[in-house]
């Protein structure tokens, strides 16, 4: 999705073009440009919807300094795929407030979309979805990560999340004895 913006265009022409365009250009932290359907961006991201409505979209590429190019590419890819899939009723309704609706299982294409991501790409995408206020993408990516936790010991989970264990041995032992059934042999 990366595009090369023409450099010789006159400022005026660009401004007129921007108003009529049905895409927006987003710029990753490392300066790469991505184009995404304006409609999909506004529908799937509360942050982008606000920027489009408020006219703060930059036709030279709206700076998203918190998002790297790989994550932004995935965000744009998700938006485009979403625009092509038949959206279900729950996703169209914008009145559903953040995470108060009962969870809706990821659809088949969403599952495939997150399954192909590397570990790091998935975690970067969760952060990007959170930053952009993309409720559904956050749902799908968090669901995927929660599935990765299943069947793992606390040690293995720490490894996945790169977390340092701050329990003492005694504290751990106490909890483990209380909840012995919840642990696989590890």
């Amino acid at each position, binding site marked *: 999705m990366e595009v090369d913006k023409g450099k010789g265009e006159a400022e005026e022409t660009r401004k007129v073009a921007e108003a009529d365009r049905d895409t927006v250009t987003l710029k990753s932290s490392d300066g790469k440009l991505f184009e995404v359907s304006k409609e999909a961006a506004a529908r799937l991201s509360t942050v982008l919807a606000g920027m489009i409505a408020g006219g703060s979209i930059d036709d030279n590429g709206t700076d998203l300094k918190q998002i790297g190019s790989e994550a932004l590419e995935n965000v744009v890819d998700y938006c485009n795929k979403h625009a092509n899939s038949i959206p279900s009723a729950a996703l169209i309704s914008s009145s559903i407030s953040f*995470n*108060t609706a*009962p*969870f809706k299982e990821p659809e088949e294409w969403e599952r495939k979309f997150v399954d192909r991501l590397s570990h790091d790409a998935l*975690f970067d995408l*969760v*952060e990007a979805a*959170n930053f952009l206020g993309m409720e559904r993408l*956050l*749902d799908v990516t*968090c*669901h995927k*990560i*929660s599935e990765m*936790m*299943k069947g*793992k*010991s*606390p040690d293995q*989970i*720490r490894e996945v*999340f790169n*977390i*340092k*264990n*701050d*329990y003492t041995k005694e504290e*751990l032992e106490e*909890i*483990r004895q*209380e*909840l012995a*059934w*919840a*642990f696989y042999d590890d």
Partner: protein
Amino acid sequence: MDELVGEILLRLPPAEPEHLFRASLVCKQWVRVLCHPSFGRRYHVFHGAPPILGLLHRLQVLQGPAPTRFASTTSMPDFPHPGSDGHYTLPLDCRHCRVLVRMRQPNVHLLVWDPVTGDKHSLLEPRIERGTLIGDAMYFTIRLDNTIIKYERVQNCLSMINPPSKDVYYIALMAMEDDSLGFACTQGSSLYLWSMELKPKGAAEWVQRRVIKLETIIPAVNPSYDPLVVGSAEGVGFIFISTDAGLFTIDLKSGKVQKGRIIAK
């Protein structure tokens, strides 16, 4: 990433509670996220109605007595009733995610148990004495310290009233003439009568109405045997007093004493 931990843990399925338990062992920040009341609320909204965690058998008619175990319907294995240690326990009721278990132990009669958090509160079983109905409210006393439990039928509401005297053993509740709550007790050879008077702004306080020296009106065979109040007759202002000479009724209005039928206590 920190703020997203809750988002991820929120999506662990309630029907497989071991995932949440294991997540609590990852680090202290995670256990803080999991234990925060807002997580519980969001988890509930996110997954809809809480899952059935298991079953507490009370009776198994055909298979014999029920095992003293919590029969799990999730991936969590069965586990014994708390503190049963092989002793007999009987779950009595389950409401608001708490289980009331009857224990057969000298210092624990009842256990209020939260099977999710494992919290336990042990209680001595209150011995409920006969109650008195005044208007729409039913009053009971609890043997332990004479605390009065008021049950308002219309509002379906329970409240507690401190008794005028905690260290008397023989007491009776009664409806007074003016429909206030009466409290009769015997101490030594005297009968004390209290009534609850309502004060402005909904407050109430006990007022001592009468002290009746029973030895002057009720005969006793053995003077060292104190008369005991054993009850009251609803609505007619009679109090029953038992002595070693038998059962007597006192008409509180007229002060007349009558020897009743001798009823073995």
